[in-house]
């Protein structure tokens, strides 16, 4: 290893590597990223592929941002180890997303001109790499494929894996394209200076381990199907559309249906209709659509009709930044309904967990006859991971709606759809069941469903709708609690506890892994169930700890929510930062370190 390589290795906080391929519209940077991710899978590694693009609908510059390694990849990481720039089109746009430093290596095509100032200023090592020239030498050759070869070589991916990955990714384009790609990858692999290798080449893993190759939107769709969702209403919106598009051709295969709605008012009411009919139903949307659905979600709560709305969050408020992630719809999900409308709010913790969380949400919605809002975000929904599958055990497919719905109480002579029960769950019939017809209603009603404005009926139904959420035993899935301990001094110093929700988990877990090097006891709590908040369990998990609440939004929404529920110990701190850039482990480490230093200072 050269000096520079040692520096580079030191800059990496773990065994993973971050590489980026960028280029103008049509340069094929994203295809390069997809092939590299395939190769990562073939090499038995884990990977996470994000994309970033300019505002153009098609044809704008884009970047493929890949991180991979022998352990599951939790998040985007802090920096870029290796950048292959096919050209410098609008590179400034990516500067924030591709953090270069003196330990970074940049492969720059001399044909594209001198690197922009941002790159020079980063002090990254720049190596010339004639992607275009090399491609031009080969029949049908393309610069992005040369880059795949070069990047693969420096990143320690076996040539075989690269070739195999290209073959699979490009198979639809015909043999000539594949052959040209193979020639270019070979050339690129040879082009890379072995002295620049960042990692030793790993072995091809045969057969590769059973891993998912999946986006969060796909995983969410799978979770829905597993849990028995058989009707989906769809209105497109970035970044939720792909979830609907993934489901569209697959629902019919399992006997289900997707209906494209005229707007979100329609889609939410469509799923209410389906669920009323006994068929588990879901829709997916993002911020603006969630706003439009609030009235319909409230109807589901009041009429006790189980529905699931997956909200793939993007930058807000209003139209905001549609193509980037943010966790700023938490408030709207928790509190957005008018009236007292207790309901379920969940958040998926990572890409694969979208399957688990959505499936669980469907089951809970049916078990508790209410609306569930599942929060995902653009960073989960539109990123592609090679990751361990979520076991079927966690999201055991529902046999049918009757199983989801649970047994009907049969004691009463009159059918009381809204009967007051100990667990707050009333017997729900569906059309087709003779003698059990009722009128579902968002208007307040008595136990039979007849409209009522009597104080006693209102109080009884409000109590019941609240109670069913509080008395239910949600089990251990409400959060992922991880103890990051170095095992040496179990009881030394106060425990640091980092609390987050949903997609915040990745950066938090990685930060904790780093923090434990200097601090013996670090716990992370990633909330999967936000409402009803499992306050007692949460407070127990945070006991005696210094608490830092981490989230990706401007208003510190989770922090305020936990305070609202009186669930935070005194002195809890907030790290809240809006999008569009992903949460970085380093900023969490910095905030936690500052917090702990403050404590030490206090003790002095």
């Amino acid at each position, binding site marked *: 290893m050269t000096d520079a390589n040692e520096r580079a290795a030191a800059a990496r906080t773990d065994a993973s590597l971050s590489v980026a391929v960028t280029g103008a519209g049509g340069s094929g940077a994203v295809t390069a990223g997809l092939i590299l991710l395939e190769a990562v899978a073939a090499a038995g590694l884990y990977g996470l592929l994000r994309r970033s693009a300019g505002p153009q609908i098609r044809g704008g510059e884009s970047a493929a941002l890949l991180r991979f390694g022998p352990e599951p990849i939790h998040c985007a990481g802090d920096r870029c180890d290796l950048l292959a720039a096919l050209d410098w089109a609008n590179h400034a746009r990516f500067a924030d997303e591709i953090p270069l430093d003196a330990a970074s290596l940049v492969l720059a095509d001399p044909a594209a001109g001198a690197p922009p100032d941002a790159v020079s200023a980063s002090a990254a090592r720049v190596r010339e790499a004639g992607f275009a020239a090399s491609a031009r030498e080969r029949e049908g050759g393309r610069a992005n494929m040369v880059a795949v070869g070069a990047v693969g070589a420096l990143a320690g991916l076996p040539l075989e894996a690269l070739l195999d990955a290209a073959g699979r990714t490009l198979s639809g384009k015909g043999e000539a394209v594949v052959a040209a790609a193979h020639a270019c990858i070979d050339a690129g692999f040879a082009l890379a200076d072995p002295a620049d290798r960042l990692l030793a080449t790993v072995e091809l893993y045969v057969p590769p381990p059973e*891993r998912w*190759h999946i986006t969060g939107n*796909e995983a969410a769709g*799978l979770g829905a199907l597993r849990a028995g969702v058989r*009707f989906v209403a769809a209105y497109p919106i970035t970044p939720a559309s792909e979830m609907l598009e993934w489901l569209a051709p697959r629902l019919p295969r399992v006997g289900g249906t997707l209906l494209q709605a005229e707007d979100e008012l329609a889609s939410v009411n469509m799923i*209410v209709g*389906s669920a009323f009919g006994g068929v588990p139903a879901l829709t997916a949307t993002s911020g603006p659509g969630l706003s439009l659905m609030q009235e319909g979600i409230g109807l589901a709560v009041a009429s006790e009709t189980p529905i699931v709305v997956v909200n793939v969050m993007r930058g807000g408020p209003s139209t905001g930044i549609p193509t980037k992630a943010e966790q700023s719809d938490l408030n709207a999900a928790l509190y957005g309904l008018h009236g007292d409308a207790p309901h379920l709010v969940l958040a998926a913790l990572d890409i694969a967990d979208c399957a688990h969380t959505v499936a669980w949400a469907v089951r809970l919605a049916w078990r508790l006859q209410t609306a569930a809002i599942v929060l995902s975000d653009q960073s989960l929904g539109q990123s592609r991971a090679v990751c361990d599958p979520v076991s079927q055990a966690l999201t055991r497919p529902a046999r049918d709606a009757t199983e989801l719905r649970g047994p009907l109480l049969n004691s009463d002579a009159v059918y009381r759809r809204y009967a007051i029960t100990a667990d707050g769950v009333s017997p729900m019939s569906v*059309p087709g069941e003779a003698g059990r017809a009722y009128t579902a209603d968002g208007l307040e009603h008595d136990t039979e469903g007849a409209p009522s404005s009597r104080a006693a009926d209102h109080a009884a139904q409000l109590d019941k709708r609240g109670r069913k959420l509080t008395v239910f035993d949600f089990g251990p899935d409400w959060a992922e609690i991880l103890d990051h301990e170095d095992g040496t001094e179990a009881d030394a110093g106060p425990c640091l506890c980092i609390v987050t929700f949903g997609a915040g988990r990745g950066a938090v877990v990685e930060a904790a892994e780093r923090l434990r090097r200097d601090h013996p006891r670090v716990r992370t709590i990633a909330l999967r169930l936000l409402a009803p908040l499992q306050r007692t369990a949460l407070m127990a998990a945070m006991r005696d700890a210094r608490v830092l609440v981490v989230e990706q939004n401007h208003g510190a929404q989770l922090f305020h929510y936990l305070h609202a529920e009186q669930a935070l110990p005194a002195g809890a701190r907030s790290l809240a930062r809006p999008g569009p850039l992903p949460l970085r482990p380093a900023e969490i480490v910095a905030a936690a370190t500052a917090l702990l230093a403050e404590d030490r200072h206090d003790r002095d």
Partner: protein
Amino acid sequence: MTETSTTRAPGDHTVGAASPPRRTGSTPARQPPSAEHAPSAQHRAVIPSLRAQTYKSHIKPIWCPGCGHFGVLAALTKTLAYLELPPERIAVVSGIGCSSRLPAYLSVHGFHGLHGRALPLAAGLKAARPELTVIAAGGDGDGFSIGGNHFLHACRRNQDFTYIVMDNEVYGMTKGQASPTTQPDWHRSKLTPHGTGVRRFQPAAIALAAGASFIARGFAGDPAGLTRLLAAAIEHPGFAFVHVLSPCRTFRAEHHAWKQLVHPCERGPAEDIARAAELIQRDDGMALGILFEQQIPVYAPAVTTAAEQGQSDAAASAAALAALEAELCR
């Protein structure tokens, strides 16, 4: 079987040009026009005669005495009895308004949903449970003001269900504001003391332009004629829109004149929509009967049924899911 045949007679034929129900013989061999929405022969055998009363709930309507909506309720229960639809196979879905209170007064499955959203709720229900007879109902405010977009798209989509709009040219429930069908110079609403000054919404013309395959107009003051129209609408395969003139006694006392104004309609030719559009534009809004009917394919979302795969539902679904899961692994 006197009872049965009495139940079947959908009323007298004094007003309206609705075609007599296609099957009036005393033999029960009425072929359902579509397997999806008619009771199976078996059901009919089990429940030979369902009287209108059976379809009524015990809840007393909150409607003002003389309200047109009573007539619609009566006609609808008669229709359901006439069609011998088992109550448990029927779902009536509504929005919010005086008219939208309808479901509570029926003994069938009901959903009193949101203002303006009866149609999407019905669309979701029908897509999920195609074998049910689904009826959406509501008022002119509900359907044409806040619900106008769903009306357009329900007409286009042509799912097999019926939509009844009880048009009283006013927002009754909120105490008398102008609705889209209100005359531009009606100035009795405090909200528009000089009238709205806005052209009236023409439900039939818009339904036709939007692609509806069945358009009829009935009158709450003619329950017999209305019963015939409702029966035809429910039997129509596809989206059937029934525009019902349903007087508001309280805020539109002038509606008492409707009795004199209604008259039979001329039906537009099914094969010539352009000509039908012309006819509907010339319509004075008081013409009763089926204004337009066309047999076109009903919207059927793609579902690979288990039967096609020659498997049980559950087994087919599980196998399909397993195949899906496999595709995600590399």
